[in-house]
Structures are given as C-alpha cells and as structure tokens.
C-alpha cells in the first residue's frame, strides 16, 4: 500500500513545483520597478474604497456551512458502507437506509421551520 503512495508523494512534490514555477518564471521576464501608488490602491471600479473590507456578512452563510459539514460527515460514514455494499445482507442495507432517513428527517424539519430560506 505504501508503494502506491510513494508515487503520490512524488506527485505532490511535482505539483508543488508546478504551483511555484509560474510566478518564478514570470519574475525573470516581467517588467519590474516601482509601481505608481495609485496603481496599488484597492480596486473598486475607479472609486476610492470606503471603510473596512471586513463588513459583516449574513449569518445565513453560516447556516448552510453547518448543514454542509454535518452532511459531509454523513457521506463519510456512507462511503465505507457503499464499498462493502455487495458483501452485505439486506438488514445491513436497511440499517444504512435508516441512517440516511434520520438525517433526511432533520433536513425536512429545517425546511419546514424556514431555516433553508435565504432571507
């Protein structure tokens, strides 16, 4: 198994090289020199930027992020079950379906409570 991952290790290094190489190569050919301070201003369609960038965002983003993480974990539980699916008995399949339906019930509850609406 580690033999398979040896290639992944090399590939990881190669991918990092591919990531770092373009800016380094560009450094040799691109024009350098001090840029006009106007050019270094934050871009905002020609206007001066106003106030902090970190304006407060809707908590609604966070609601969906929570649902995402928990369904992610559910998918991770389902993946080994899916791999073993062909070797399983019917009751094991039904167990996993109960597992899915419990979370689906939670999703429907949130839906009825209006938590999935974008306000």
């Amino acid at each position, binding site marked *: 198994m*580690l033999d398979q991952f040896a290639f992944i290790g090399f590939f990881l290094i190669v991918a990092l090289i591919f990531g770092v190489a373009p800016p380094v190569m560009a450094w040799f050919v691109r024009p350098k020199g001090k840029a006009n301070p106007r050019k270094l201003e934050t871009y905002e369609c020609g206007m001066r930027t106003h106030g902090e960038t970190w304006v407060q965002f809707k*908590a609604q983003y*966070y609601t969906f992020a*929570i649902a995402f*993480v*928990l369904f*992610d*974990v559910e998918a*991770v*539980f389902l993946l080994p079950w899916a791999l073993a699916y062909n070797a399983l008995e019917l009751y094991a399949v039904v167990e996993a379906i109960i597992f899915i339906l419990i979370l689906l019930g939670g999703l429907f509850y949130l839906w009825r409570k209006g938590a999935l609406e974008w306000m």
Partner: protein
Amino acid sequence: MGPQIPLEWYLFLAAALFCIGAYGVLSRRNAIAILMGVELMLNAVNINLVAFWRFLEPGGAVGQAFALFVYAVAAAEVAVGLALIIATWRTRETVILEDVDLLKG
C-alpha cells in the same frame, strides 16, 4: 513490509500535539481560537486511535471506526460551538470569552 517506525514515536507526537492544543485552549482569549485548540486535541486523540489500531489489531475495524466516530463528534462540537459563538456575537458584539460573563450583566 511492516511499519518501520515504532509505536512510541506516534504516541510521543500525539502527546505533544495534545499538550499544544490544551495550551491553546487555556491561554487564548478569542473563543474561535479556543475551539481551534480543541480541534488539535481531538486530532491527537485520533492519531492515538489509529496508531493503536495499526500496531495492536490491524485486521480489525474497531480502531478505524472509532476514529470515524471521533470525526462525527468533532464536527458536531464545532458546529454547535461556533453557532453559540455567533449567537453571542449577535447580542454582545464580542468573541472574547472574558467579556461574555452574563452574571456581571
């Protein structure tokens, strides 16, 4: 070819990671940073679980399965913890735990 690294190395690493995480929990003021420390501690626990699975019972599934359950607990803990932090932020405009002291009003 079995693993060439002794079990102790993993346990040392997990112990160090756990202590770093606990230090983060005890010494940070920002509630989100404290949660990050908790995550590091959970990771240390998981390293231990997987290392014991590998060295004591590689044929079984219990070690890996419990690591999966720890993931579920970690996800639930982070979701609820951060939701509390955001609810507190909405009413008190702070994430500094020392300022969130309801008894002082």
